[in-house]
């Protein structure tokens, strides 16, 4: 028999999100549900190594967590006789104690985390904490926020969820559309935070957490083309992660990566999912981004990068989502499709004031200036980009490019 730790860890990752989602929906209080499940896990950590792992670990955890909620409620009832509390107790008692399997409320919780009454910048952190059980410190450092501030914001948000009685039920179909969008955007932000650290040196593993969230949305809403699009996008990018650093840790830009280092299985899965999304005939931002990455991944089969179609897709993407990032990437794609002068013209149309401290803008400028033979200006732009970069491998790469430009 193994030690008690591994089964506890397995139960934690497998069922904690489900337990929290279920109890929070029953109880109407996310923070209380999280505490109760946390306590149940602690109890398991103490008992399982001695008593052995129960036959149905999830049911065991559920029983302990519920008892904790009921105990707290009994104590609270001494102070208040609020009617909602009585209703909540009734809801919780209505379940048979060995109720199993309990309904999966994670999608409803995901949607609640993206409620318009909650600050959009907290959508992703709230999802990571409540559904994936990632602690506030890890979330804080991924989003470059101080842990104390992150903890405080999450606590305040959960208080609002309880006091303003945000609904833990799935929103009506007509309200689902915009909410799906917020859910997907939060997952995208999570992936972005993980992408900046490809070798996971900070130990956050956010890229894979984003992948599991995206899979969850697809599993629960299999017909949502943008959810499929986002999952495909993540898989295309993850398929190339390994190749983004050479053996000695040097940054390798996309066009210099060797497709033999890419993960064919992941890329193949991404293609299948993207085709499923396209068959719904409702294009959108994430499907377009995935299709662009699919174009880049064609090199895995020995094809050249199809710059013409990538450029065309960027045109559509910029029309849908004219973010600084998309505009800069579109200019680079244009320079490969129609010549560097055309790309430069597109980049020059970007609002330079808004892009002044935006790293990808300076990297794109440097890249185009270098190809136009304006090496002095290119060197300056590479140095500006380097000074705005957080990732140290990318920083050294940009510095070495700057060095070779001024030589």
């Amino acid at each position, binding site marked *: 028999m193994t030690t008690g730790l591994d089964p506890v860890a397995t139960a934690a990752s497998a069922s904690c999100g489900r337990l929290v989602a279920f109890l929070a929906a029953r109880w109407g209080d996310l923070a209380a549900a999280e505490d109760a499940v946390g306590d149940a896990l602690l109890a398991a950590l103490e008992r399982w190594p001695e008593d052995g792992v129960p036959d149905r670990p999830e049911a065991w955890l559920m029983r302990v967590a519920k008892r904790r909620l009921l105990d707290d409620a009994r104590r609270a009832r001494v102070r208040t006789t609020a009617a909602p509390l009585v209703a909540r107790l009734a809801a919780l008692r209505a379940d048979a104690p060995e109720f199993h399997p309990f309904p999966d409320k994670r999608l409803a919780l995901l949607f609640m985390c993206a409620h318009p009454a909650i600050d959009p910048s907290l959508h992703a952190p709230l999802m990571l904490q409540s559904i994936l059980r990632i602690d506030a410190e890890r979330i804080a450092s991924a989003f470059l926020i101080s842990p104390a501030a992150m903890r405080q914001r999450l606590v305040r948000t959960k208080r609002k969820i309880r006091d303003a009685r945000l609904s833990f039920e799935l929103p009506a179909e007509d309200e689902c559309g915009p909410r799906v969008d917020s859910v997907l955007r939060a997952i995208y932000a999570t992936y972005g935070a993980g992408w900046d650290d490809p070798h996971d040196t900070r130990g956050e593993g956010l890229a894979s957490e984003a992948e599991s969230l995206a899979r969850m949305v697809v599993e629960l809403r299999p017909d949502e083309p943008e959810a499929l699009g986002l999952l495909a996008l993540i898989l295309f990018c993850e398929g190339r992660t390994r190749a983004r650093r050479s053996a000695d840790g040097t940054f390798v830009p996309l066009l210099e990566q060797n497709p033999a280092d890419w993960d064919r299985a992941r890329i193949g899965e991404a293609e299948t999912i993207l085709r499923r999304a396209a068959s719904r005939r409702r294009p959108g931002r994430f499907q377009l981004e995935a299709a662009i990455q699919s174009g880049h991944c064609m090199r895995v089969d020995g094809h050249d990068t199809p710059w013409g179609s990538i450029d065309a897709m960027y045109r559509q993407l910029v029309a849908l989502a004219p973010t600084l990032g998309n505009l800069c990437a579109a200019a680079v794609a244009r320079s490969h499709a129609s010549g560097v002068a055309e790309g430069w013209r597109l980049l020059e149309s970007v609002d330079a004031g808004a892009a002044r*401290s935006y790293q990808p803008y300076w990297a794109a400028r440097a890249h185009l200036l270098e190809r136009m033979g304006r090496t002095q200006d290119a060197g300056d732009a590479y140095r500006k980009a380097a000074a705005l970069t957080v990732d140290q491998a990318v920083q050294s790469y940009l510095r070495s490019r700057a060095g070779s430009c001024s030589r």
Partner: protein
Amino acid sequence: MKYAILIYETAAQLNRRKTDDADAKAYWDSWNEYSQALIDGGVMAGGAGLQEPHTGTTIRFASGREVHDGPYADTKEQLGGFYLIDVPDLDTALEWAARCPAIGGAVEVRPEIA
């Protein structure tokens, strides 16, 4: 709101300053470029690079005034300089601090007394 970015550099980084070859130039360039980025971003409010820790002299007031040779704390990373930046909130300050080229070291971000 003004925030100080206090830069704690490793001995290896501080040693790069002393040589006169390309590496020292690369070291100083990285700081100059970072400073320029702060200026271009409109957030620079002051700061200074400091000479190496061994040039420091410490006065302790524990019992009267005792003058000691060397930096205040003998730690693995040493204060190498600081910036003062003017930004709306801590999140923005951290975003700027994270770009600092203090390879292998650490930075501390602290708000001024309002």
